[in-house]
């Protein structure tokens, strides 16, 4: 775990008081009668990368999708407890999910560009929110593609269908699409699990760059990845949050025996 310590040693000098984008308290979640999340309490810091690790089926994706309320697309879902996004309760009936999701963007496991041109993919978000002027859209498209470090690769083929891009390019396009509405938070659910090592590396570098301006929460199966990219790491097991601490602490000196078992590869 030397690598993570090298990357993060500067963070140690940061002032301890940190702002939170999400404050999760006593969160429980059920799919029908099956409980998938148990009493989660967790404060997610702003402008940092938070990694979520844990064995398959432990509720990582469920937790992530709760943060932008995408989990509610499954009709049987019930929740209890509280999640505050920058001080506002996200379950408040007065807050629309559309509003929440314009501030909390999401990147999915499989690259999922629309079957449209590269330009229209990026312009999708702004357009649905009523930004129609060609000049504005042009600016947003370029800025977002640059932000996702893919501008140079696609600037000459903006009118081509996004399906012509490679898997890695598609995923960065999806990140750019997410950046286009300038959310505050980006949720990423195993964004590199469908990519080759080189594309993975590019996305990881991108995450590092983006954290200057965005709060990023990333689910990953890959512990090296969590160690490489994140500032804080949460370990989930069977729907419970077992441990949540600074990444270097969690990987070098876990408090909980189960965390240690997991990161040393004894199960999962």
């Amino acid at each position: 775990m030397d690598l993570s310590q090298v990357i993060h040693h500067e963070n140690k000098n940061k002032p301890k008081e940190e702002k939170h984008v999400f404050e999760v308290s006593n969160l429980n979640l059920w799919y029908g009668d099956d409980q998938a999340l148990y009493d989660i309490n967790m404060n997610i810091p702003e402008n940092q990368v938070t990694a979520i690790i844990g064995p398959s089926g432990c509720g990582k994706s469920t937790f992530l999708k709760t943060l932008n309320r995408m989990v509610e697309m499954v009709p049987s879902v019930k929740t209890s407890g509280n999640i505050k996004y920058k001080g506002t309760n996200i379950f408040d009936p007065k807050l629309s999910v559309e509003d929440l999701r314009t501030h909390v963007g999401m990147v999915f496991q499989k690259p999922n560009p629309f079957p449209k041109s590269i330009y229209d993919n990026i312009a999708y978000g702004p357009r649905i929110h009523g930004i129609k002027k060609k000049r504005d859209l042009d600016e947003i498209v370029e800025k977002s593609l640059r932000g996702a470090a893919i501008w140079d690769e696609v600037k000459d083929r903006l009118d081509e269908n996004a399906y012509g891009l490679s898997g890695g390019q598609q995923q960065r396009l999806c990140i750019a699409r997410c950046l286009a509405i300038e959310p505050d938070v980006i949720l990423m659910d195993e964004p590199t699990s469908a990519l080759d090592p080189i594309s993975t590396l590019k996305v990881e570098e991108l995450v590092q760059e983006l954290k200057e301006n965005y709060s990023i929460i990333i689910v990953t199966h890959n512990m090296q990845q969590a160690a490489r990219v994140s500032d804080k790491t949460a370990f989930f097991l069977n729907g419970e949050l077992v441990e949540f601490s600074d990444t270097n602490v969690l990987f070098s000196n876990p408090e909980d025996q189960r965390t240690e078992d997991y990161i040393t590869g004894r199960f999962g």
Partner: protein
Amino acid sequence: MNGFLSKEEWKKRLNRRLFINRIFYILFFAATTIGLIFLAMLLYRVLTQGIGYLSWDFIKGFPAPYPEEAGIFAGMIGSVYLIAIVAPVSLVLGVSTAIYLEEYAPKNRISRFIQGNIQNLAGVPSIVFGLLGLTFFVYIMDFGYSLLAGGLTMSLLVLPIIVVAAQEAIRSVPNELKEASYGMGATKWQTILRVVLPASIPGILTGSILALSRAIGETAPLLIVGAAAAIYSLPDSLLGPYTAMPIQIYSWVSRPGEEWPLVAAAGIIVLLIVLLLMNAVAVFIRNKFQKRY
């Protein structure tokens, strides 16, 4: 296996089984081709009989008491007018129904009822739709034996076919695309309008064209709701009398004499060409927009 049989005996049986296998292979193949042979004969017969009467005059001509003068123009235009009613009505109703069932309907008994109802409606004989049209559109709504009554009757007839085709197309849009849209704060209707429909339009179009070509060939319901055979002008209003290609063909088929079947065959050629073109368009759309996700 051959414990009780001598080697020769066993071999003989095996040969017999292989022989039977061979015979049935040929039989199954022959049975399959019978339908195709029938199709070939039908087309050949229609072509050889009708080609002599197929001329520019036939295409531009109106119905007439003499075979040499009869033409299919009124029928063609009538069919076009019918489709001009059927297409918008059945597409709006059908696609809306499909969107509702696939995207909005809660998984409850009402939705299941509507779904089952559509399936059953698709199995109702077309002539029964004719009876519905006769009572409802011709008499109760008092449209009379008019283009409008015929068009609306046909719309209801193809509605279930279009619903089913559109549902299939909508269902084939991957969930990931919808998630991407919702994830950016799009509303449900925005997602449907900008993601689901564009992605499913080729499928919807292909299915709809096939459904409409069914409407073009349908005869029975139009006979019931009063499409007339002897029409000497083009329909001038929605409530005017009209005819259609299959109605013309039917009236020629059922006339006595040596010549009329030949006229009917000429009409059939025109009808089949129209259907062929529509199917070609449908296949073209399907191939051009073949699923890329």
